[in-house]
C-alpha cells in the first residue's frame, strides 16, 4: 500500500524518499552562490552552504541578517536573484513550493484554524491524494511522535502554543519531507516551554537520525544544544560556519566570538611567540595576555584576544607571572552565578563566578587567571557599534 502511494508522490513531487527519512544524498540542501536582492537592498549575498543528510545545521544571527531569507529560498517562497538552490541532486531554484516535498515549521505555527489537529496533519497527504488508510496511519504515527495523539480531534485554538507547535511539527513530518525547515520554531513560546521543546526536538532527531534539519534561530542556546554545525549570519553573509563545539571554543573572527557566547575581545599587538609558534603573547594596555595562535600571526601584528567569561577565575595566590590585576567595576548577580566586570587598565573583562559569600565591593582589587589554551588570538578587525 505504502509503495503505491510513494510512486504517486514521485509523479507529483518528483522526489520520494524510498523509506522513511532514509536515502542518503537525496536529503542534502545545497546553496550555491545564492544572492537575494529586493531593488537596492541585498538581503543575502553569495551564500554558499551545504547541509548534509541527517545533519542539523542552525542558522544563527541577529534579525535582518538574512537567515530567514535563506530558509525561504529552500522552501521556494523566495526566488534567488542569483545562484542556485539544490535539494539532493535536484536544482529546485525555480521549482514551485508545492513541488519541493519540504516540511516547514514557522514561528507562529500557521496551523489551519478551520481544521482539527488530525486534519491539519493529514493536509499534505490529502493534497497528494494519498490513500485513506495510509493517511490515518501516518497521522497517528506523526501525532504519537510529538506526543499529541490525545488531541487529534481538537481544534488548533483549543491548544497551547507549545502544543500547536508540536502539531505543526507533526504536520511537517507527515509528508515524509526530504528536509525539515524550522524557522524560529520556538520564538513565540515562553522560556520554560522553549527549553522543553528544545529537548523534544533533540529527542525527535535521535528517533529520526536520517532527517536533515535546517534550523533558523536567533537563540544561541537552541543552536548550541541542537545543531551539529552552526552557521553565523551577518548582514546577509555567512560570517562563520563550523561545528558548534569548534565555533564556541575557537571562534574564527570577532563577530562569531561576540555573538556566540559574548566572549571578551581585547585588542593589542603580538609581542612574542612560543617556540612552535602555536601560542602568541599580546601586549594589551600594559598587560601581557597569551592565547592560541591559530591564524599564524607574527610579532608586531595587531591582533585580538578572545577569552570566554567562564574561563576567567580568581588567580591562585603566588602565581605572579600569569595573573592579571584589575579592579571590580560592576557586579551583576544572576542567582546561580554572578557576572563581574573587571577594569583592567582601560579595558574591561567580564567573568562569571560562583557568588561569593560576602558581596563584592565595587572598586576592590581582583587578580584574574586563565589557561592560555582556552584563549584564542585573532587577526585584528575594528570593533563595531
Amino acid at each position, binding site marked *: 500500500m505504502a509503495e503505491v502511494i510513494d510512486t504517486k508522490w514521485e509523479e507529483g513531487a518528483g522526489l520520494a524518499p524510498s523509506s522513511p527519512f532514509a536515502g542518503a544524498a537525496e536529503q542534502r540542501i545545497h546553496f550555491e552562490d545564492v544572492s537575494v536582492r529586493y531593488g537596492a537592498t541585498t538581503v543575502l549575498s553569495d551564500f554558499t552552504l551545504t547541509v548534509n543528510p541527517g545533519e542539523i545545521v542552525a542558522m544563527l544571527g541577529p534579525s535582518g541578517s538574512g537567515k530567514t531569507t535563506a530558509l525561504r529560498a529552500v*522552501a521556494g*517562497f523566495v526566488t534567488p536573484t542569483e545562484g542556485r538552490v539544490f535539494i539532493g541532486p535536484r536544482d529546485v531554484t525555480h521549482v514551485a513550493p*508545492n513541488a519541493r516535498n519540504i516540511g516547514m515549521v514557522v514561528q507562529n505555527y500557521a496551523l*489551519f484554524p*478551520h481544521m482539527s489537529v488530525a*486534519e491539519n496533519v493529514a493536509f499534505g497527504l490529502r*493534497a497528494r491524494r494519498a490513500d485513506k488508510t495510509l493517511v490515518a496511519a501516518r497521522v497517528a504515527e506523526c501525532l504519537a511522535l510529538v506526543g499529541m495523539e490525545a488531541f487529534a480531534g481538537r481544534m488548533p485554538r483549543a491548544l497551547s502554543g507549545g502544543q500547536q507547535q508540536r502539531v505543526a511539527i507533526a504536520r511537517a513530518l507527515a509528508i515524509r519531507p526530504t528536509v525539515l525547515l524550522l524557522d524560529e520554531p520556538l520564538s513565540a513560546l515562553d522560556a520554560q516551554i522553549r527549553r522543553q521543546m528544545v529537548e523534544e526536538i533533540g529527542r525527535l532527531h535521535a528517533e529520526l537520525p536520517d532527517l536533515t534539519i535546517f534550523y533558523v534561530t536567533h537563540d544561541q542556546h537552541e543552536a548550541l544544544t541542537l545543531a551539529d554545525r552552526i552557521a553565523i549570519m551577518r548582514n546577509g553573509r555567512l560570517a562563520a560556519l563550523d561545528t558548534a563545539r569548534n565555533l564556541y571554543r575557537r571562534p574564527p573572527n570577532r563577530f562569531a566570538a561576540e555573538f556566540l557566547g559574548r566572549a571578551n575581545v581585547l585588542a593589542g599587538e603580538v609581542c612574542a611567540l612560543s617556540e612552535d609558534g602555536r601560542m602568541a603573547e599580546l601586549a594589551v594596555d600594559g598587560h601581557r595576555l597569551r592565547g592560541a595562535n591559530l591564524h599564524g600571526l607574527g610579532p608586531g601584528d595587531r591582533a585580538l584576544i578572545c577569552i570566554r567569561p567562564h574561563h576567567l577565575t580568581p588567580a591562585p595566590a603566588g602565581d605572579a607571572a600569569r595573573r592579571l590585576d584589575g579592579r571590580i567595576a560592576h557586579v551583576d548577580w544572576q542567582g546561580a552565578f554572578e557576572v563581574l566586570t573587571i577594569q583592567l587598565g582601560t579595558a574591561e573583562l567580564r567573568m562569571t563566578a560562583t557568588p561569593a559569600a560576602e558581596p563584592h565591593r565595587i572598586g576592590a582589587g581582583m587578580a584574574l587567571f586563565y589557561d592560555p589554551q582556552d584563549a584564542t588570538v585573532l587577526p585584528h578587525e575594528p570593533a563595531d557599534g
Partner: protein
Amino acid sequence: MLIWSRAGRRATLFVAGLLIFVLYVAPLALILLASLAGQWNGVWPSHFGLLNFVGVFQGAPGEAIWASLVTGVVASAVALISGTSAALALRGWRGIRRKALDLIFFLPSAVPSVSIGLALLVAFSHPPVLLNGTALIVVIAHFVIVSAFAFGSVSAGLMQLPCDVEQMAESLGASSAYRLRRVTLPLLAPYLAAAFGLSIALSMGELGATSMLYPPGWVTMPVSIFALTNRGDVFEGSALTVILIVVTVTLLALVQLAIRGLAGGSARGR
C-alpha cells in the same frame, strides 16, 4: 475615564443620551407606532392593531416584499461570485495595474444610483438588447450597485487572511486549486457570508435606480413605501417600512451568526 466629576459626567451623558434618543430611538419607535396605528389625530396616534400589516400582506405591497427579496438575493449572489473571482485574481497583483483594476471595480459605488438607473435606461431601451420594462433590468441595476461593496468586502477579507497559513499549504504540496478549495475559501467563508448578507440589505434599501427602472409588475419595497406615503397612506407605508427594517436587521443578525459560527471553527474540513 475622561470626565471624573459626577456632575460633569451626568451632564455629558444627558446631552449624548438626548441626541441618541431624538435622532435614532424616537424615529424607529414612531415608525413602529405608526405601523400599528389606525388613526393619527392630535399629538399621538390611536386605534392600534395589526390591520396595516394585514393590508400590506393582502394587497399589492405584499408582492413588493417578494420582489425585493428575489432582486436582493439574485443581484447579491451574482455580485458575490463576480467580486470573489475578481478579488482572488487581483490578489497577487501590485502597483499601477492593481490600482487601476481596483478603481474599475470600486467605481460603481461612487456613481449616484439615479445615474446608474438612467444609464441602464439609455443603454437597454432599444434593440438589440431591450430590457426596459423587465424585472431583469432592476436586478442588473442592483447588481451594479452592490458589486463594488461585494468586491470590497471580499478584498478586505482576503487581506485579513493569514498569508503564512496559505504558504504552509503550498509548501505541504497543495496545488493552487486544492489550496483554494481547502484553505482559502474556508477561511474566507465568514467574509463571504458577511458580504452576501450586507449586499442583500443594501439592495433591499435601494431606491434611486429602482425608481428609474421598475416595471409595473416588479415594485420593490422602497418604491412601494414611497408610493404609499406619497398618496397619504402613511400607516401601511410604515407597516411596510417596519417589515423592511425587520428583514434587514434579521439579515444582519444572520450575518453575525454566520461569522461567529464559521470563525468559531464548528465548520470542519470535508
